[in-house]
């Protein structure tokens, strides 16, 4: 039936290493430090979920990797983004753009604005092959058809000639995924890919992404504000707050035993995570103002565990004593937070 896509990467190969990435935006109100030293790895075959609320910097991270930071306001001011050893942060935009779509692909939140409304979807997918690989027209269309079937568009033979507005939201997202995986990228970045979709469709699209990853062995970065939607698919999670990663580790570890008060607070704020009839325990205060961050740990004004050192010293991302390697938290009092479970 549908041809299986060839495996594109050796399992466990290190695909992406982001090291101390710093991004700033220049605004009329001052310089905003959108990312303040973000570091994480992505290996082939694994899915890393980057989670956070507004202003956390999660989308900016993806934009920085793909050289999509809004110009001229945004710029990378420090750190490295090494894709298979090659530093994207210091490379010219043209080189980065070349890598994108061939090796690294991205899917966005709103497929309606990412798909060109005046071209047929078959044409748009075929265009990817024709432009990047010089594939002749007939062959490109055949490949486009194959991809549409792979992503689960029913009646692909007829629908390949349709325009984007003739599809539902979930189907458009699938088409975008088809375009993204067309050239067999090693790394796929999804920036809130299911946020704008209905709940039943969300699950289908997430399952599709998981299937594709299992087949091709590509690495995935999923960015979301919804802790639940990535729980089935992600292997590791990185929680972001005010431009820094405040906790990271295997997703089960992080969700079951949060070592940072923010993660704990988030988990207690989610209605589905709280028993029925029980009151939610929200995090006090408001999201951080990036123009006026508090000194020390950015979370300290809202933190039930805050002590003096939290107000003066920025906590480093470290492994709490006695806990498994790989689970890191940026908190002076992780040990107390963990024992509060």
């Amino acid at each position, binding site marked *: 039936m549908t041809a299986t896509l060839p495996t594109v990467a050796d399992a466990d190969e290190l695909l992406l290493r982001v090291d101390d990435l710093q991004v700033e935006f220049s*605004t009329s109100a001052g310089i905003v430090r959108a990312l303040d030293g973000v570091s994480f790895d992505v290996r082939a075959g694994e899915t890393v979920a980057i989670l956070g609320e507004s*202003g956390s910097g999660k989308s900016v991270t993806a934009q920085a990797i793909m050289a999509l930071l809004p110009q001229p306001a*945004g710029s990378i001011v420090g750190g490295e983004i090494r894709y298979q050893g090659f530093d994207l942060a210091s490379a010219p935009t043209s080189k980065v753009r070349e890598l994108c779509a061939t090796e690294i692909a991205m899917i966005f939140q709103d497929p309606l604005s990412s798909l060109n409304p005046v071209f047929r979807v078959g044409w748009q997918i075929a265009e990817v092959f024709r432009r990047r690989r010089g594939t002749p027209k007939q062959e490109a269309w055949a490949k486009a058809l194959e991809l549409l079937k792979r992503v689960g568009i029913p009646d692909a033979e007829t629908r390949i000639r349709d325009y984007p507005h003739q599809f539902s939201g979930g189907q458009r997202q699938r088409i975008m995924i088809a375009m993204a995986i067309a050239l067999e990228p090693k790394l796929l970045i999804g920036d809130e890919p299911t*946020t*704008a979709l209905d709940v039943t469709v969300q699950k289908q699209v997430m399952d599709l992404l998981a299937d594709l990853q299992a087949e091709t062995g590509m690495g995935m970065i999923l960015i979301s504000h919804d802790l639940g939607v990535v729980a089935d698919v992600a292997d590791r999670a990185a929680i972001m707050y005010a431009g820094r990663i405040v906790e990271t580790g295997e997703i089960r570890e992080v969700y079951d035993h949060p070592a940072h008060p923010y993660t704990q607070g988030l988990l207690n704020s989610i209605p589905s995570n709280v028993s029925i009839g029980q009151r939610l325990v929200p995090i006090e205060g408001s*999201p951080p*103002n*990036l123009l006026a961050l508090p000194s020390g740990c950015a979370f300290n004004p809202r933190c039930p565990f805050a002590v003096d050192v939290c107000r003066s010293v920025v906590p480093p991302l470290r492994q709490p004593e006695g806990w498994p390697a790989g689970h890191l938290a940026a908190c002076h009092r992780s040990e107390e937070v963990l024992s509060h479970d």
Partner: protein
Amino acid sequence: MTAPPTIAMQTMQRARRARRGVTARITVPLVVIGLFIVGAVVVPMLYDFDPLHTELLFRLQPPGTTLPDGSYAVFGTDQVGQDLFAQMMMGARVSLTVGVSTLLVAGVFGVLLGLLAGHFGGWVDNVLMRVADVQLAFPAILLAILLASVLGPSLWNVIVVISITNWVVFARVTRSQVLSLRTREYVEAARTLGASHAHIIFRTLLPGCVAPILVVATVEFGHVVLLEAALSFLGVGVPLGIPSLGTTINNGTAYLGTAWWISTLPGIALAILVLATGILGDALRDRFDPKLRSA
């Protein structure tokens, strides 16, 4: 269902807006228009200008001549001996008066109709917009000439005529802004409170329309001034006693070869005034909403 706009995105938008702030495109035209206003108000007072006075001995003197009676004709004199500079400033006064008055009349009328059309929709909108369409089908200047010859020459009639030809753009811009605002939730919130139509139109919708109306008004000012000059040039504008830039230009057409300054200098002044308002309007439009287009 979408995630809220990130703070980074919001600060970016603020940055973009601020950088387009008070630039040269706003200050320079404002200064030019300011000079015109000052000149129009002050100069005629200094010169004691009498439009019916003739001094045939001084006629057709080039710019920069010192006249026998001691006065300095910085822009020369016209065919009946009047100082051209004073006459131009009187003309500027007429232009500015007609411009502002027309904007007020056409503006109030047009904005009101636009608000009604946009808010009520349905047949009200249909009727008003078809009237506007019919009117726009007439070339403005022909309509103006027709009305002016029917009504006769007078300053007020000029204002009325030009208002009639220009209200449509205000109505259109207001209506389109209202159409985009009326689906905003804060307008629905006002309806849920039980607000009357008047409340919604004047307190909720109108304040949101001020920015595009301001932009349109600035640009229309230039059009109005030009139209008045054209009508006066053709003889169907302001009456004989009042010197408009248009009538002065007209008077100079017979002497273009010999006393070129009579037509040319008022023409240049007119061009500068219209250009200044046009640039200001553009700059304001960019500042408030780059997606805005005139009707």
